[in-house]
């Protein structure tokens, strides 16, 4: 397994106020790879979707823990892992279908579609009753003078 050149883990409570904190933290961490503005925005948006999914769905009757793991690799890619220990997803394939949501009409059901559009790869592992882990990967373009 290839080791990251840098990594960080944030743990926070499943409050919606932490959505902005999560995406801004990921954007700050990604800055080490000297991304373009579009690349930073893509990372922020994907993190926002994954974290929001956990906040909305993982702990329906209480607050719970969410971790955001950020890893940078020598090939200028970034790996983002959002993990919760909540209710889990019974049918991951169904959950990833555009417009599908178990939320109310305030949810568009497009979270996974956005993640898949903005990241190079999205992997979802979930066990009902145990929690969900979403791992995403994005290559950041190399520019002159970039590096950590």
């Amino acid at each position, binding site marked *: 397994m290839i080791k990251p050149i840098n990594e960080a883990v944030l743990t926070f409570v499943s409050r919606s106020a932490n959505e902005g904190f999560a995406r801004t933290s990921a954007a700050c961490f990604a800055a080490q790879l000297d991304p373009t503005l*579009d690349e930073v925005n893509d990372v922020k*948006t994907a993190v926002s*979707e994954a974290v*929001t999914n956990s906040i909305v769905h993982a702990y329906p009757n209480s607050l719970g823990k969410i971790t955001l793991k950020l890893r940078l690799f020598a090939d200028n890619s970034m790996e983002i892992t959002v993990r919760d220990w909540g209710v889990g997803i019974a049918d991951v394939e169904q959950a990833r279908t555009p417009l599908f949501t178990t939320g109310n009409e305030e949810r568009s059901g*497009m979270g996974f*579609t956005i993640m898949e559009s903005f990241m190079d790869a999205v992997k979802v592992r979930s066990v009902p009753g145990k929690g969900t882990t979403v791992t995403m990967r994005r290559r950041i373009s190399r520019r002159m003078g970039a590096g950590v």
Partner: protein
Amino acid sequence: MSVTCSGEGRALTLAVSGEVDHHGAKRIMDELECHVAAALPNMLTLDLGGVTFMDSSGIAVLLRAHRRLRELGGTLSVTGTPPQAARVLRAAGLEKLIQFN
């Protein structure tokens, strides 16, 4: 996040500023419902020029606005969409449903 309302007659403009995410979306939808119920517009323009970030919660807001205007027999248009929000809305194919200026 803020929503400001302007307009004349049954043409309503709602200008949204700040971050349109799950945390802020409910308030935006509540303000939208409130202003639409009061004005019963036949034309609603959503001005997104002040939006600093949008995720798929913004898609839900636009779909709600579209649905409400359709119920009233009116039209929805969106203006001033910044590049990050435009990318999200394009990923959802919303330009096929809603007029973007």
